């Protein structure tokens, strides 16, 4: 019972701090679900995000259902989804009458002045976390980089390496998405195919 309650409350919290759409929640999923409560590994989170992107419906709802199901079955999926959507239902229905005033309010504009760049920084941090489970084979050894900067030239002994077979996929997906050559779904399916293919070749 306590588990379900805490699942619900965690997702109410996510719903309340989700500024600018579902992707801004990624750093919070990593911080809370992966690192603090160990619901799942970063790898699994990445897999769930990918599946949420290629299934119909809002990506945030897909992901919340997936995470909730994983932790607490069907009831868990339902609680997490409801929790995620509850704050916006309350806030929107309270504020919808004065939305025009809201847009020009000094307070809101000042708030967004800080929120927007903070979201950028947090998504950039999530991007690094993603690189560490895709293009790189382990966490970036920052301590070792620091040693090199201090000119302590010691040979590196660790698991960190660049996965060369993933580099073309990374560059291709950046190019295709930036130039709008393919939809997100197309890029994801193509990358899955290429990833399996490269595994067969290398």
């Amino acid at each position: 019972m306590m588990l379900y309650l805490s699942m619900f409350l965690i997702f109410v919290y996510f719903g309340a701090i989700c500024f600018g759409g579902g992707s801004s929640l990624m750093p919070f999923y990593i911080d809370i679900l992966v690192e603090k409560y160990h619901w799942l590994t970063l790898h699994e989170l990445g897999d769930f995000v990918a599946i949420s992107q290629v299934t119909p419906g809002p990506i945030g709802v897909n992901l919340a259902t997936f995470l909730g199901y994983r932790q607490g079955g069907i009831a868990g999926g339902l609680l997490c989804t409801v929790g995620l959507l509850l704050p916006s239902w309350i806030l929107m229905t309270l504020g919808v009458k004065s939305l025009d005033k809201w847009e020009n309010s000094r307070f809101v504009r000042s708030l967004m002045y800080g929120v927007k760049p903070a979201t950028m920084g947090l998504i950039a941090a999530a991007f690094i976390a993603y690189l560490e489970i895709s293009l790189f084979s382990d966490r970036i050894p920052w301590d070792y980089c620091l040693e090199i900067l201090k000119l302590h030239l010691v040979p590196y002994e660790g698991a960190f390496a660049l996965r060369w077979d993933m580099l073309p996929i990374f560059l291709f997906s950046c190019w295709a998405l930036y130039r709008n050559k393919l939809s997100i779904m197309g890029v994801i399916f193509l990358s899955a195919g290429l990833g399996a293919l490269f595994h067969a070749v290398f």
Partner: protein
Amino acid sequence: MNNQLTSQPRGKVLWLLFYHFFKIALFVVGGGYAILLAAEEIFVKRLHWLKEGELMDMLAIIQTIPGLLAGNAAIYVGYRAAGRIGALVALTGVALPSFLVITFVAMGFSYIPMNNGYIQGAFVGVRTALAGLMLVTLIRMWNKTVHDWIQYLIVLACFIGVVFLRWNPGLLLIGAMALGILYCMGICDKLPESAGIGDGEKEVNRK
């Protein structure tokens, strides 16, 4: 309130809200923005419940209220059509297909042989593509969000705080809010241009 709406019985309005949002969420892949466009197609162009362009004008505001884009859009349309209950019905409609589909997918997920090398390769490939997607999102958002050196500092502080110092992202976000209010309403009396929430996004989205 619109003419088309007041002439219809409330039960029918609620049913249409649920039916259309359920259909959109079941068939539109690609997340919030795609769903928003589909909702505009039906509720503005076909049913005329909302004024032309109203939903797109609301986009900038909807993005300042916490929540998912698709969820907030559904709440907005539902509220305009049938008040608080309408908002709840529309939200249920937009969330239910995801819930059902994903529950089935999640049930089957444990049967995927994750030890298989090809499947591992495929998932690493997908994660790589998602890293690319995040980078592209960041580059696209950059010009719309970061305009002066204080905002540069906020980006940098949040990045360093999470990656190197392992600070709590929630506290960083609250800190950034406080800084924004302190700076825009206290230190500099006049609001900088960059604090606007629309910032020409509407023009881009209209095209």
